[in-house]
């Protein structure tokens, strides 16, 4: 097959993944602790169904926002991971590599601490998830870290050094979290641990009103970065010689990834694995380093995998008990391992 044929074949794969997303979306709608027949799902989604019926309430209040959150988070984390891997030329980079999600964690840990200190009975009973105070503090922590990284990025020209700085920030924030944990009650610790396991199920419609535009903006920005990302594959010197302003590009890449990671972590907790693994799975499927294919590819595969994980986590029998981070790692990692073993000859290309 010649290359042109291959490229159109890859476009078909993109369509296939889109179809997969639609199918998984309906599976997510239909299955759960209560089974809802497909024709009913379709009816409710098209605006029909009896007002106030149980099925309608379950779908509109719970399953629909949850599936949307999974789609947005999956796409956002995956594209963030791809951009970090390309920018830092490092296959181990992910959206949280610069310490942005640990910044969010620190914000949430502070909330946990305040609950303990101030004896705010009302919040003590509440879960950390979905709580407006939690979200605000998580975003504050993530954005503070993001600004710190962007400040360093202006000073430090070398990308490897910047990466190390990001990892150092992660260590510091984790240590601060540990201190806070040490002074917390076991009840709060449990609540914090639950937050750390991630979930798509605590985002209601009012929060989606913030999540949807921010993530769509992040995804849109990533499409604007296709050409710069391709140039960065050649290394910074070649990229600069081809007219790229490397400093500005780096700023926008970190900014976009940081924005996506910050809001997703704030609403869903620190979701691991997807952001690191999806870019690799995508590169293995498409066998290209061209971001014109990789960007839409990672977004679609990220959405698909997040929906699949959410579906597994909510299968009857698990009774919503499986946290999302457990599912992504336990079911996702073997997929990556098997793909690698199948394609042993494939070179790891960041």
């Amino acid at each position, binding site marked *: 097959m*010649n*290359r042109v044929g291959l490229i159109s074949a890859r476009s078909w794969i993109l369509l296939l993944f889109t179809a997969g997303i639609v199918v998984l979306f309906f599976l997510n709608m239909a299955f759960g602790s209560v089974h809802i027949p497909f024709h009913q799902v379709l009816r409710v989604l098209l605006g029909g169904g009896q007002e106030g019926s149980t099925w309608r309430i379950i779908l509109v209040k719970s399953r629909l926002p949850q599936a949307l959150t999974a789609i947005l988070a999956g796409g956002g984390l995956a594209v963030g991971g791809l951009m970090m891997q*390309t920018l830092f*030329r490092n296959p181990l980079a992910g959206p949280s590599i610069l310490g942005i999600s640990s910044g969010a964690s620190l914000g949430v840990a502070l909330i946990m601490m305040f609950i303990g200190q101030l004896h705010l009975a009302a919040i003590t009973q509440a879960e950390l998830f979905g709580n407006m105070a939690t979200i605000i503090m998580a975003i504050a922590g993530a954005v503070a870290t993001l600004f710190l990284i962007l400040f360093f990025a202006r000073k430090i020209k070398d990308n490897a050094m910047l990466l190390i700085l990001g990892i150092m920030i992660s260590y510091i924030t984790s240590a601060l979290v540990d201190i806070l944990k040490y002074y917390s009650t076991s009840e709060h610790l449990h609540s914090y641990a639950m937050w750390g396991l991630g979930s798509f199920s605590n985002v209601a419609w009012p929060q989606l009103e913030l999540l949807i535009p921010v993530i769509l903006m992040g995804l849109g920005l990533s*499409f*604007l970065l*296709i*050409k710069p990302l*391709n*140039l960065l*594959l*050649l*290394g910074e*010197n*070649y990229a*600069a*010689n*081809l*007219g*790229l*302003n490397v400093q500005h590009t780096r700023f926008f890449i970190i900014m976009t990834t940081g924005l996506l990671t910050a809001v997703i972590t704030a609403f869903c907790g620190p979701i691991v694995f997807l952001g690191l693994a999806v870019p690799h799975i995508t*590169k293995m499927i498409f*066998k*290209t*380093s*061209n971001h*014109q294919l990789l960007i839409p590819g990672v977004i679609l595969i990220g959405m698909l995998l997040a929906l699949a994980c959410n579906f597994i986590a909510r299968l009857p029998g698990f009774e919503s008990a499986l946290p999302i981070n457990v599912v992504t790692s336990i079911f996702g990692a073997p997929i990556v391992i098997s793909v690698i073993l199948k394609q042993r000859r494939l*070179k790891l*290309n*960041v």
Partner: protein
Amino acid sequence: MRHHLLHTKDLTIGYTRKGKTVKVVHQNLNLKLVPGEFTCLLGPNGSGKSTLMRTFAGFHPALSGKIFLDNRQIQHFKEKDLSRLVSVVLTDKTNVGNMTVFELISMGRHPYTGFFGNLTPRDRKIIDQAIESVGMEALRDKLVNEISDGERQKAMIAKALAQQTPIIILDEPTAYLDLPSRIEIMQLLHRLSSQMKKAVLLSTHDLEQALRFADKIWLLGNQGEVQSGTPEDLILSDQFKQFFERKGIRFDNITGTFKIPNPQARKVKVSGKGVEYYWLLNALQRNGFAEGHESDLSIEIVRNGSPHYLLKKTGGAGIEIGSIEHLIHQLKTLER
């Protein structure tokens, strides 16, 4: 006076850190690149070849002095304009293994493409012409992972051609290549510079190929000394000799190669000519012998029929030998 694509005026290059000069590598450089000329930059490690090239490409600022591109100072160019004037081929590590050769070369069009980097039919035509110029038509749709190092460098040169810049700067592009690939690339660059009227500047350690293909040579020394000129003039004026000779290494002006003189060498009288003569001297030198007229040992090259060698020691009978290997063995036996 001919049009200069690039010239420098009292240029000083080196490194800075936090705006302060840390090391000056070269001072008062007055160099020029002319369209249609292939210039080779020679010099030992640490002589600042890369620094000079990176300064020309705009990666480093000059410490002082001026660089003119097309009679305009380099710092007055925007990134985009500079990218249409100077292209580079570097030794930097790239991550383009999963790209096709065509995709890699198409990168050269990015100074001209729009926001999303989509290629117009004209861009594609220029890329295909660049591929043709380096003779890579058959590899057009291969992945970069699947081609050899020499082919990858040719693809990088094609990328520079697709960039359509009057100046091409190449930092040791033949460093990791085998000899045939090195010659091929040097030949290619010489042809491209004269046919397309480009100014090509290449740094290399490969003296032999530089002497053979370069229109101009710049010699960059460790102590900041710089010589430039056509290779032949540099040899005839002994500048090459002064530049490269050091204790135990002699530069031979006639062959343009290095010799290792051995004052303790046992002298042998050699008579004969032709290709056998040349290689016989090579074997003698390696084995600690040297040609000399005053000697009790003599070798005569007999060229009727298949060539053979007549080895004589004064007072002894001559021995006829068919190969240089046996000849050297006999010589060593006689000397023991």
